[in-house]
């Protein structure tokens, strides 16, 4: 069925219930036993393949970030035949490269009371009790190995004068467990992964498909057996058969148009897989990061993050009086409201992201925001500069300060920086079990693309940890176990399933090119982004969400009627690439809003105005919502909700307080 034909059905949906429900519960396949023994025992129970036989198995890995690149290299080292895809020209450009602040690990090198259990505990609590305990514990265990592996491949982490690794503290934690490489931790980690990947490419173990975009997943008898990808240079649409498919395609935050993601970041791989049957979990859990450079104008194409590590030394404030337009330097101490320190005395400026973002929104809503449109707060390094000297601050954050000055034309050593929250990360994603396999056999999902270990809110420096845990250690164990059990079943791309999928992908490109409408793809993307930010952003309520649910299908219909995609399909066509991505955002947006509408509690980054404490803090509803919302696509009606219950046996359910 085509998107154009679907529209009337979806329009009807707004009158009828926006979703259906099923009693079926997705099985997380969590191994039995005490939490700290699960992973080790599970690994021992895995089936192994004889090294001589591994080459017969082909694994398609889509994505070359920390998760995909790590998995592709590790599976190549093990002897599997790996095909790795990315849409950029080189695997080194995956958006993991942009991570600034650091990566967590429970090494306890500082002797400040850290442990695997504490990292596990902090992450479950930080995620507002909406993550699966067993996965999080495994993540905390593997964090130890990650740092070892990174150092072994030459990641130049920051060091102390004695030659030991340096660490710092990061939002939401009271121990210094964050390892970093100046303000470029993601870059250095990804280059470590990339170099290992290039080594396997040179060996012939991995074939790299750069400038290729996966446009569909191919199922044979209900099992994932390959992908259809477009060669972005020639435009050729090509089938690739495999014994298992691994998606590590990053997050879907660009549904909101303006975000800290790369411009090319997209949801196409996961959305196509969803339409082929993979469950999509907790799509409304979107992280809005408190410290980004505010929007300047309509032309803006991206929002830039100022690493929250700056909050270690910077203090957030706004004027006490609404509408105070004096320059920051002219506002005396007594007339400044250091609102995070006031509201959350024990965590202060290091309060977790969801909390810090909402606090910024609240003071701006009170008319106390600064800068154009009152949509900004100060992040002031003045005290730290006076205390430590400009040189120390430059050594810590030099590259961030330069970036800020380049973008805003203001010198942050003289004038406090202005920041505002922006879409940054998606906790939701394709549903996976303990093995990181989706409900579709043979389809694995790693990194930010899965619904992951972060519950309803991710703590700083935990995504890099999860990407590498999935890529280096989990997938290279669970994918071979699956292959050993499934056995090698030869498959040619002449199979009808490939021919149908390829024809559908070609047809979609032809339709996009044939509309010849009057508006650009970017114009539609801007409209969608604004709609989502206004109605499904930092604070959500029933009426706003229902309005979005009515308007998204209208926008989608307008897109398919009036978009203009120039050029041809058989060539490098960047507008066609964008059009396909925005078309998918226009569908995913509706699921995000539906999920947000159904979850009438507030938790983590999902704040429902109807569900708050008298002080305005998020109010969870564990009695009704202690589950993973896993959505099934339904071609003939509204999406269907399946619930995976969450059981907390180790970390007692508690109100998350950072006061």
């Amino acid at each position, binding site marked *: 069925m085509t998107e154009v034909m679907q529209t009337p059905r979806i329009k009807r949906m707004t009158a009828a219930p926006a979703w259906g429900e099923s009693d079926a519960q997705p099985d997380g396949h969590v191994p039995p036993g005490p939490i700290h023994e699960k992973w080790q025992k599970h690994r021992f129970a895995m089936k192994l393949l004889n090294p001589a036989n591994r080459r017969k198995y082909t694994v398609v890995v889509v994505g070359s970030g920390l998760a995909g690149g790590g998995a592709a290299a*590790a599976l190549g*080292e093990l002897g599997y035949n790996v095909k790795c895809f990315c849409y*950029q*020209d*080189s695997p*080194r*450009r995956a*958006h993991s*490269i*942009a991570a600034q602040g650091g990566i967590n690990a429970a*090494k306890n090198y500082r002797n400040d009371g850290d442990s695997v259990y504490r990292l596990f505990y902090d992450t479950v609590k930080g995620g507002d009790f909406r993550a699966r305990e067993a996965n999080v514990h495994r993540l905390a265990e593997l964090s130890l*190995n990650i*740092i*070892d592996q*990174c*150092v*072994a*491949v*030459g990641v*130049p*982490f920051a060091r*102390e004068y*004695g*030659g*030991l*690794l340096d660490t710092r503290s990061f939002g939401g934690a009271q121990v210094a467990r964050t390892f970093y*490489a*100046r303000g*470029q931790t993601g*870059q250095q980690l990804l*280059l470590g992964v990339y*170099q*290992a990947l*290039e*080594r396997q*490419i*040179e060996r012939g173990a991995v074939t790299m498909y*750069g400038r290729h975009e996966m446009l569909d997943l191919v199922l044979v008898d209900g099992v994932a057996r390959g992908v259809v990808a477009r060669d972005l240079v020639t435009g050729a649409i090509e089938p690739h058969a495999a014994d298992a498919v691994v998606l590590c395609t990053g997050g879907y935050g660009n549904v909101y148009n303006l975000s800290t993601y*790369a*411009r090319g970041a997209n949801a196409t791989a996961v959305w196509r897989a969803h339409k082929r049957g993979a469950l999509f979990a907790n799509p409304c859990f979107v992280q809005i990061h408190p410290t980004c450079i505010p929007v300047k*104008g309509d*032309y803006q*194409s*991206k929002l*830039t993050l100022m690493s929250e590590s700056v909050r270690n030394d910077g203090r957030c404030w706004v004027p006490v009086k609404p509408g105070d337009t004096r320059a920051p330097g002219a506002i005396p101490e007594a007339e400044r409201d250091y609102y995070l320190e006031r509201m959350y005395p024990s965590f202060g400026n290091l309060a977790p992201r969801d909390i810090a973002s909402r606090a910024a929104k609240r003071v701006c809503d009170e008319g106390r925001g600064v800068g154009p449109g009152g949509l900004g707060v100060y992040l002031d390094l003045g005290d730290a500069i006076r205390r430590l000297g400009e040189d120390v601050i430059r050594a810590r954050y030099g590259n961030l300060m330069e*970036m800020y000055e*380049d*973008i805003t*034309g203001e010198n942050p050593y003289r004038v406090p920086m202005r920041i505002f929250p922006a879409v940054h990360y998606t906790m939701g994603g394709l549903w996976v079990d303990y093995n990181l396999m989706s409900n579709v056999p043979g389809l694995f999902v790693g990194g930010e693309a899965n619904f992951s270990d972060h519950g309803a809110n991710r703590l700083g420096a935990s995504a890099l940890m999860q990407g590498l845990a999935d890529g280096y*250690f989990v997938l290279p164990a669970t994918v071979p176990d699956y292959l050993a059990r499934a056995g090698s079943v030869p498959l040619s791309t002449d199979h009808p399933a490939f021919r149908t999928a390829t024809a559908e992908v070609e047809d979609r490109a032809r339709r996009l090119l044939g509309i010849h409408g*009057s508006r*650009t793809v*970017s*114009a539609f993307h801007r409209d969608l982004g604004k709609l989502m930010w206004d109605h499904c952003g930092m604070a959500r309520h029933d009426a706003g969400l229902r309005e979005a649910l009515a308007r998204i299908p209208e926008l989608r219909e307008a897109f398919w009627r009036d978009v*203009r995609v*120039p050029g041809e399909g058989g*060539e*490098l066509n*960047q*507008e066609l690439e964008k059009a396909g991505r925005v078309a998918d955002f226009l569908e995913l947006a509706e699921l995000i809003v539906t999920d947000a509408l159904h979850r009438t509690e507030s938790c983590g980054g999902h704040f429902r105005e109807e569900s708050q404490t008298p002080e305005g803090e998020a109010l969870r509803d564990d009695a009704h919502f202690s589950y993973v919302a896993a959505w099934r696509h339904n071609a003939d009606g509204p999406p269907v909700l399946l619930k995976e219950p969450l059981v907390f046996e180790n970390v007692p359910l508690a109100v998350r307080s950072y006061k």
Partner: protein
Amino acid sequence: MNLTLKVWRQEGPQAPGRFETYAARDIEADMSFLEMLDIVNEGIILAGGDPIAFDHDCREGICGMCGLVIDGLAHGPRQCTTCQLYMRNFRDGDTITVEPWRVRAFPVVKDLVVDRGALDRIIAAGGYVSAGTGSAPDANGTLIPKPDADAAFDAAVCIGCGACAAACPNGSAMLFTAAKVSHLSHLPQGQPERYARVVRMVERMDEEGFGGCTNHGECAGVCPAKIDMGVIARLNRDLLVATLKGGG
């Protein structure tokens, strides 16, 4: 401000290229160079034309995907990536020339997009530590003096954009290659393969059709990651030792 752009248009690797002129109107000082091109492209599309193809992704100066020769300078006048160049560096009425990287080893794909696969292949020739996943000793098991770690980091920040080769009169990728050699040779983990690595990477660089380095220094002058020419001296030293050792 209003500007005139002279942009290199080329339909494909074999097609002949030419400059086309476009007007960029109502450009604001706070826009990035790429946001300015976005606006020009939206205008071209609505007028029924074929938009200018150019590479970009992160738009925050770190992925290395963007790269244009602006008024004859790789990444333009500010020694930053093209995406981090802001229009406040231009004046109302300026005419700006925009070209792709012009390097023999980087064939043009379309318009301003080039194929930089040769850089990946230089890394594949040896720009890594051969440490398989899962076999690593404790991270603090080997102490690394802070100055060494810092020197390794300073070289490791290369973003792989290829501006060095685009700026070099010989089309050499020496700064790129030397940055990786230098990064790994400053670390204990990089020692076992140190001399074999430098030989293989330099050989690959030659095979890929990059020119030789004659120490012009243009590369370091445009490098957005501020990689220092010192890395080239270090590469040359290592290469000499490797030759004395008999090819590593």
